[in-house]
Every structure is written in C-alpha cells, then in structure tokens.
C-alpha cells in the first residue's frame, strides 16, 4: 500500500518521457484484486491481456499461473527495451562528450579562443556531464524501483491465488537486462571520474585567473542558490527528478527497515553526506534483508504500528540533531 503510493508519486515527478515506461504497478494490482481468490482461470481476460490458451491440459492453477506469468513477461519486455535503449544512448553520449573535451583541449592549446570562451565551453561540457550523470542515476532508480514493484506484485499474486509464482519469477527478473546494472554503474563511475579530473583543474584556472578574493563572497552566494532555479530547464528537470527519486528510494528503505533502526541511523548519516558506504557492514545489511522479508510477509497488520515507531524514531533523531 505504501509502496504503491510512493511509486505513483515518483512517476509524477520523474522525467516526463519516462512515465509510461515504468512497470504498470497499479493496473497489475487491480488485476490481482479482480482475480478469484481460489485459482479458477479468469472468466474474461482483462484489458491489455491475451486470452489464455492451452485450457485443455492441467488444472486451472497452472493455466492461471501461465496467464499471469505471460502478462508479467510483457512487462519485463517493456522494461528491458526501455532500459537497454537508454543505456545504449548513454554509452554513445558519454563517448561523444569525451571527444568534445579532446576537441576543446586541442583548441585551447592552439590558443584559438579567448579565455572566457574557453571557460564558457567547459561549463557547457560540465553541464552536459552532470545531466547525463543524473539521467544515468535515474535509470538506476528505474531499475531498482521496477524490480521492487515486481517483487511486490508477485507476492500479492501468490497471496491472492495461493500460487507459487513468486520465487521462480523473481529469479527470472533478477537476470533480466533491466536489472543487470553493472554496465551502467561502470558508466556512472567513468562519468564521475571524468568530472573529477576535469573540473577541479578548470575551477583552479577560473579562480587563479581572477582575483579569487573578490570571488569568494559570490561563491558563498551561489552556494545558497538552489540548483533548480539557477541553471536552465534541462538540468533543473533532472535535478527535480533526482530529488524525487531520492525520496522514493528513502521511502523504500524506511519501509524495509522499520524493525532495524541501525539501518535507519545509517540512512541519516548518509544524508549528512558522510561515511554512508562505510557504515554498511555486511552484517547489518544481512539483518536488513532478513527483516525485510519478515516485514513483507506480514506488512499489512504491522504496517501502522511500524509507521508509528518510525515517526517516533524520526522525532528522536531530529531532536538529537538539534
């Protein structure tokens, strides 16, 4: 229930072109709700689904499972297609950007442009890098959220029909292209490395060329600026979506770790931007995973309770921070 809301909110705030590319969580949930609780094959196949075939062999359970697995399969294809296509695009864009850097560098060495024009160009490149980085992170969010959604849907299905689709299908989904994000992670790292190598140097050039003392106060001024307002439409779009994604992912983590404030504490540390990854010992994440399973199993009855606990926790932390 909570997840559905988070998911919907996320869809509203993510990049507009991506909205219809996500898992059709809501309709799938509706579909399950309309299923008869005891595994008879559905009387009329709901919209967007194919009529079940192979009615002759096996009992109704198998047919129903087949039918639902096929619907989920179509969703998987949708996710994979979108994911792979975006990934391809980022591979290309990153390479083009790298070429552009080389070009600019060559230009600079040839004393081709004026100083300001050079920095202007570098700023453009930097912006492009940040945008592509942001979009790649959003694609990872896409991967993660859709997988989470799929797992939830499968659990709901099993619960409703008494089927055993969840285990095999989760394993299947785990090996889908949209959930194998290693290549994308590599791209992200490369993008970050490029930015780090390029822009500290660039900043030095910018500052050393001018009277840095004069620039200092302005820098502070800029720091108080919200990125969404100061930069143009493209970046602010990505920025807004990033913030929304952050909220959603945090929501997921909260929901998953209601019984384990260790991870909650970690999450608050993470927001402070310090030692986020260091805090994750293998032990604590293991506990996490156990507790999430436990949690998901009986989330309905304990959800309210857990949320109360959660908010109490938040209060406690908030007070501590003050």
């Amino acid at each position, binding site marked *: 229930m909570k997840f559905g809301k988070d998911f919907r909110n996320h869809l509203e705030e993510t990049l507009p072109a991506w909205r219809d590319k996500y898992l059709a969580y809501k309709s799938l949930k509706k579909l399950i709700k309309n299923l008869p609780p005891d595994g008879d094959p559905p009387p009329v196949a709901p919209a967007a689904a194919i009529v079940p075939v192979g009615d002759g062999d096996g009992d109704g359970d198998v047919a129903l499972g087949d039918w639902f697995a096929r619907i989920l399969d179509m969703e998987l294809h949708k996710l994979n297609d979108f994911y792979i296509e975006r990934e391809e695009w980022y591979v290309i*864009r990153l390479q083009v950007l790298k070429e552009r850097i080389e070009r600019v560098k060559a230009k600079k060495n040839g004393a081709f442009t004026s100083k300001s024009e050079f920095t202007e160009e570098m700023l453009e490149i930097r912006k492009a890098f940040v945008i592509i980085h942001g979009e790649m992170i959003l694609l990872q969010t896409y991967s993660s959220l859709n997988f989470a959604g799929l797992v939830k849907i499968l659990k709901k299905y099993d619960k409703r029909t008494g089927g055993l689709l969840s285990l095999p299908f989760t394993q299947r989904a785990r090996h889908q*292209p949209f959930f194998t994000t290693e290549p994308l992670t590599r791209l992200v790292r490369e993008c970050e490395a490029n930015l780090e190598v390029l822009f500290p140097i660039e900043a030095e050039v910018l500052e050393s060329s001018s009277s840095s003392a004069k620039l200092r106060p302005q820098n502070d001024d800029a720091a108080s600026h919200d990125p969404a307002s100061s930069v143009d439409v493209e970046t602010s779009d990505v920025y807004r979506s*990033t913030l929304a994604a*952050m909220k959603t*992912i945090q929501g997921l983590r909260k929901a998953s770790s209601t019984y*384990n404030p260790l991870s909650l504490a970690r999450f608050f540390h993470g927001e402070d931007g310090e030692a986020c990854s260091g805090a994750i010992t293998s032990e604590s994440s293991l*506990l996490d995973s*156990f507790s999430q399973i436990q949690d998901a199993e009986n989330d309905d009855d304990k959800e309210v309770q857990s949320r109360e606990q959660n908010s109490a926790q938040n209060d406690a932390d908030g007070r501590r921070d003050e």
Partner: protein
Amino acid sequence: MSTQSVIAVKQFSGPDKMAHICAVPQPSAHNLSNANSDRSGSRNNTPLPCAIQSSNLKTELINSSGLPKILPFSTDSNTESSLSCISQADLSDPVLSSSSTFCTSLYTSSLKNSDPCRKTSDLPFLPHPPKCEQQQSSPGLSSSSLLLFDADLRNSSHGNDEHTDFIKDFLNLSSDGSFHGENSVIAYNEQMEFQFLSEQLGIAITNNEESPRLDDIYDSALQLPSLPMSYCSDQEDLHDAGSPVKVQLSSSRSSSGTPSCNKPRLRWTQELHERFVEAVNKLEGPESRVITLVHSEEFDHEKINITVLLMFYLIHLVEATPKSVLKIMKVEGLTIYHIKSHLQKYRLAKYLPETKEDKKPYSEEKKAKSVANGDYHAKKKRAQMAEALRMQMEVQKQLHEQLEVQRQLQLRIEEHARYLQKILENQQKTRESISSMTSTTEGESSEFAQIEKTEYKAETSSPPLSKCITSTTDAECNSQVDNKKTASG
C-alpha cells in the same frame, strides 16, 4: 582512389556479380551452430519452470498462426509427408540466398525497401484459416521429421540465424511433448514465409535493376572481405519490418536473460561502441579520401569537372552505411539491424552538442551582458552556475550510493528466496519418499500430509532463523532508541 572506384563500377556492371555473391555464404554454418549452442547454453542457465516458457511460446503461436496462410503450399502441404517439406525447404534455398544478397545492395535506397516492407506488413490482416485444420493436419509431421528439417536447414548454409533459432526453440519444446504438432506447422509456415518474402524481393529487385548500386561500388572500393552475417541479417531486417512474429521473437529472446549476441535486442557495451566508432571513423572520418583524390589526379578542366561531380558522388558514399560498418567491425552475432539503429542514435548524439554550440541563445545573451556589464558579472554568473552544478552532482552521487545499497538489499533478498526454494524442494523430496513409504496405511499417510502441510506453511510465512534474528535486533534497537531519547532529552 578515383580510378579504383571507377574500375569498381565497371566491374560491377558486368555479369560476374553472381560469382561474387556465390562466394559468400560458406562460413555461416558455423555461425548457426554457434547460435544454437549458445541458445541451449542460456537455457541451462535459467532454470525456469516449464510453465513459464511454454506460456511464452504459446503467445508466439497465437501470433504467428495468423500469418502466412496465404502462401501457395501452406494448406495442402501440411497433410503431405515430411519429405516434401524438406524438399520444399531445399527448393526455397537458392531463392533465399540470391535475393538476400540482393537486398543488401538495395539497402541504401529506401524507396525500394519500403515496397516489400509494406507488403509484408499487410500480411497479418489476411484472413485466418480455421484453427481446427491446423491441429488436424499437424500430427502428420513426426518429431524426427522435424529434426531432419532442422538439420537440413543447418546444412544449407544460408538459413537465417533467427530462423533456425526459432525452430530450435520449437524443437526443445517438442521434446517436452506438449504442443509438438502445432509447432512443426508453424515452423514450416515460417519457412514458407521466408520464401514468400524472398520472392517478393526478387520482384522488387528486377524492377529496379537499372539503378546504380552505390553500396556495392563503395564496398568494392574498400576491398573488404564480406562477413556472412550481413545478408542473413539483412533479410532478418526486412522480415522484422513487417511481421509480428518477429517482434514477439525478439522480446521472448531478450527475456531469456543471459546476454547473447544473436538476440535482436543487443546490449551496446562501451567496448562494442568503441569498436563501432572506430569503424565509422575509418569509413567516414578523414575527408582526405576525397581531397587526395582531387590532388593526386592531374586533369584538365573538363576532367576536373567530372572529378568534382564524382567527388560529390563519393561524399554520399563516404557516409558509413550499416553494412560497411558491420563488415569492418567483424563482431560475431552482430546484425545490420543492430548497426542501423545504433548508427542513427550515434548521429543524433553527435549532432546534439553541435547544434547546442551553434544556437547558444542563453550564452549569447550572457556574452552581450558581459560586454555591457564588464567581466565581473559574467564571472560571477559562471561561478554560480558551476556551483549549482557541483551541488547537483553531489545530490546525484548521494542517490547513487543509496541505490547501490538498495540493490545489494534486493540481491540479498533474491538470494534468500532461492535458498528458501531449495529447502522447499528438499522437503518435497522427503515428503514424497515418506508418502511412498507410508502409503500402505491410509490413516497414517493423511496424518503425515497434514503435518507436512503445517510445516510447509511455517517455512514460507516466516523462516524461523530470520524471526529470531529480528527479534534480537528489535531488542537492540529499543535500547538504542532509549539511549537516544535520554541523550536528547
């Protein structure tokens, strides 16, 4: 260079084109078998319940059954023996090979391409035959004939990758025994459709024979050995444009999970893309190709005019075609279809920054301002923007870290689930053995079943291990909360 290409033109206007074409097809048999082994490999890697796979195939069946019924032989030859099937396949082979090579040469002209495409896309709307007929006639083909059919296709080295793959799919399924009859019919119809397609292509080609084959000229100028893949995939490409079977195929394949090259849905890794860029640069990179052409030749005025004409002609050729890129890349399993869409994206991506650089309405305005207000403001603005970008980057990195954590979690859950499944399976086994042992006494066995059931339930709903761990952590956190409260209060 120019002379070379001119000669090439002459060569190709001559009749020895067929010879060139015939030389190509040999090595693809290797590819096909490769693809097959690949396929079976991936099958092993994803241990799925048969239900899911078969359901997949069922959808394919539905979609494909409506397709090629208009074909000349499809209805009556279904009832014929398997032997005629094979001979039919044999017959279609020469047509296939020649026409598919032709269509690569047709590739550059979209006009010619669109014609057969349109026709094939009309196919699904043709009337469906009654379903019962299909089922009735299907048992005529035995599984061995299907095997023969497949083997035959593999031997005739110009079968399509996808096609054999498809049949292989069906073969696997038919060994399961469930839908065997229908499958063979479909597979057969597939073959028919290929023939049908190639016939159409043949017609299209003869209609347009006079037009110059730019692609061919260019290729010969490059003097590259051609890959067998290129024409196979070309046909696949054309096929793809029209029929829903193909679409279904591609998606079902991508769902098999393991990344394999012969999937229509290809994952472009960085390495692959680098190779691609290399190939494109090799093809269209140095404009020197044209320039040297002008410099090296000593012509009088008239001839220079001709050279200029030729030059413009060649500029068009210098645009890398999917086919030429494919040949240079030499990556196994890559098809022209993959290259084509990737090339499109690549061009788009390349144009994107340049158009941005060109227009720059924002920075132009800023520049004007900077002139008016002095350097200081421009610098300030730039610093602000840089700062904003830096902040944005920070946020994105944070999200990235959280996502990594989330992903680890998800993977662990999946692992855990797999572990649970293993336990369940083991239990199932023991239950089976127990029930077989105790089947003699009825009351006892039912009792056993009951016990098993409760055990099973306990196992699924809450693993005892996790329960105990969470309860201990619960205690821990409570104490922690208390600590915090006391600290803050």
